[in-house]
């Protein structure tokens, strides 16, 4: 086990606490950089979605994980980014310009949403953000002169410095990866700055933060604006990746998916956003794979345990029928959310930390290290 000896504050807020970090992240980056030349085009496409979802996840972490303001309206921010890009692209605005404009506009709208949110807490904030998302969705469907209504908008391949970058090309992947890495590094820097510390203070106790001189209103609005702006950037990439956007893509369902990203990844660290994004993007191909192969596998197991050919075929068809039921994916989603909340509230990254600590402290690891305290007295109504 490595002991970090910190002598001043600079040591404490260092991005790479020791050389191990540099090596492991360097290796990860190298793997990601050679990925397009190794992986199949389908997996590459999924990897681009991982980058986009992780970017939104980081944005949501800033707001929900670090400032403590839950939002179920991030699909709306994504939509605003995507539609701004699609609209400006029609007027031949170059990519870097509309990329920045989309982020700025979404950030502005985020700040505007943040103002009413100042008075709201917990459940009320969740409901308010849901309403905001509904209103945005309806506006997108009705404002036909700009958004083309329910018919949706085509998004042309983006052109960067005069070169057309197709949505399946490695260059597009590198672009998404660059946005994700810049977002993560930027967020890490933000979180170790006074602003980030104010966010965390607000999350932990608003009253305490205020009495320490934190301007709660200002920082909440800032948090909303930053989170929305990052989501807006992701929205531009999302629009280009899908090459077609319509209002029904940006529903509550998508907002819930984003929340699932951080919930499953872990709400206390940026690692969570990436792990959660990998999980949510990869669960689809995984379920499809199960759907195709599970009947065969189970029938095979049944056959090994002495089931006759007839009954094995029977089992095969039954499992296949079950696996192709319509709502199975939704049911599994729901089950995953509930199971994570019940058994692994710290998410995948929390699980990783626990495993790491288990081996570091072996044989002294105690489960109670990560036990959360239950509070039965605090009434969130009287805050």
């Amino acid at each position, binding site marked *: 086990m490595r002991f970090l000896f910190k002598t001043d504050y600079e040591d404490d807020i260092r991005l790479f606490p020791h050389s191990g970090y540099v090596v492991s992240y360097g290796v990860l980056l190298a793997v990601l950089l050679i990925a397009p030349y190794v992986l199949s085009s389908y997996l590459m496409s999924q990897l681009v979605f991982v980058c986009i979802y992780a970017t939104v996840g980081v944005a949501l972490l800033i707001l*929900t994980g670090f400032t403590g303001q*839950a939002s179920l309206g991030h699909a709306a921010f994504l939509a605003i980014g995507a539609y701004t890009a699609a609209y400006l692209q029609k007027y031949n605005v170059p990519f870097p310009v509309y990329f920045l404009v989309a982020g700025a506009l979404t950030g502005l709208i985020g700040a505007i949403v943040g103002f*009413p949110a100042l*008075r*709201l807490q*917990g*459940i*009320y904030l*969740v*409901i*308010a953000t*849901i*309403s*905001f998302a*509904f*209103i945005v969705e*309806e506006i997108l*469907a*009705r404002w036909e002169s700009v958004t083309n209504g329910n018919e949706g908008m085509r998004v042309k391949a983006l052109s960067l410095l005069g070169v057309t970058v197709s949505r399946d090309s490695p260059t597009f992947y590198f672009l998404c990866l660059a946005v994700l890495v810049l977002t993560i590094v930027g967020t890490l820097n933000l979180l170790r700055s006074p602003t980030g510390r104010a966010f965390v203070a607000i999350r932990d106790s608003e*009253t305490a933060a205020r009495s320490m001189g934190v301007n709660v209103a200002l920082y909440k609005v800032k948090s909303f604006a930053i989170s929305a702006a990052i989501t807006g950037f992701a929205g531009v990439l999302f629009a280009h990746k899908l090459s077609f956007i319509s209002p029904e893509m940006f529903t*509550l369902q998508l907002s*819930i998916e984003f*929340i699932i990203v951080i*919930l499953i990844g872990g709400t206390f660290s940026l690692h969570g956003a990436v792990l959660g994004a990998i999980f949510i993007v990869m669960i689809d191909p995984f379920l499809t794979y199960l759907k195709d192969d599970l009947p065969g596998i189970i029938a095979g197991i049944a056959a090994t345990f002495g089931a006759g050919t007839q009954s094995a075929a029977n089992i095969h068809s039954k499992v296949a029928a079950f696996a192709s*039921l*319509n*709502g*199975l*994916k*939704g*049911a599994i*989603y*729901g*089950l*995953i*959310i*509930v199971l994570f*909340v*019940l058994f692994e*509230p710290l998410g995948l990254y929390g699980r990783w930390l626990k495993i790491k600590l288990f081996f570091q402290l072996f044989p002294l690891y105690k489960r109670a290290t990560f036990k*959360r305290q*239950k*509070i*039965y*007295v605090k*009434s*969130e*109504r*009287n*805050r």
Partner: protein
Amino acid sequence: MLDFVQQLVSGVALGCVYGLIALGFVLVYKATEVVNFAQGDLMMLGGFFAFTFIGMMGLNYWIGFAAAVAAMALFGMLAERVVVRPILGYPQFSIIMATIGLGYFLRSVSGMIWGTDDFKIDTPFSQGVLRIGSLVLAHDKLSVISATVILCALLYLFFNKTTLGTAMRASSENMLAAYYMGIPVKRVVSIVWAISAAVATCAGVLLAPITFIHSNVGLVLGLKAFPAAVLGGFGSIPGAVVGGVLIGVIESMAGFYLAEGWKDVAPYVVLLAVLLLKPEGLFGLHLRKKV
């Protein structure tokens, strides 16, 4: 004028359904400070149970209704035991997520069991109409309105006059203190969930003749019930129903008098306005934390 009254009545009937769902939110919130995002889906499931008993097994309407309510009350207790009890006392965010997950699960599973078609339950109120002058009121709408009034009154009396109701209010204020006072908090919470699932079932069954039962009905109506609950002040039983009726009327008026598209948005615009101007709602208590 006649149009207006007609819209008003159908708005009130629709609003009563929102109110009934909102009642479920409020009950659970009052007793446990948990907001149950799966309330609409409990309603949907109740509707499906009633459909199974009445439509498929051919039971008498009232017997089927009662059986569905009883079954859903048990289901509510089960859901509380499995999903909510282990995380009581954790931050609200966890519980919200857990109930969202539960809703997702229920929606998909009932889609798998009953299919994705629309279902209709034959009720004694499906056909008749009441004529007052030239005003035509369908019995199904009147049945929703009267059932809502009765349920609301019963629940209000229950919460304010009975020992169990008082125990529920106490455990919502401060679970630990209530526990020290000898209130069996766990049992109280599970009874509340049973009641709220039963109320949701009533909503689902009464709704069946108006909008059909399908696996997504809970999501659509459940989300509309939020503005109702907030407007009434989360935590007030009459407030939930009044809020629901207001939202229903606003929605049906917006659908009739305003441009297309306003109908679906109007409840949320109202909700945001209420949250901005009067976050504690019409009937809510305004509480401040004492430091």
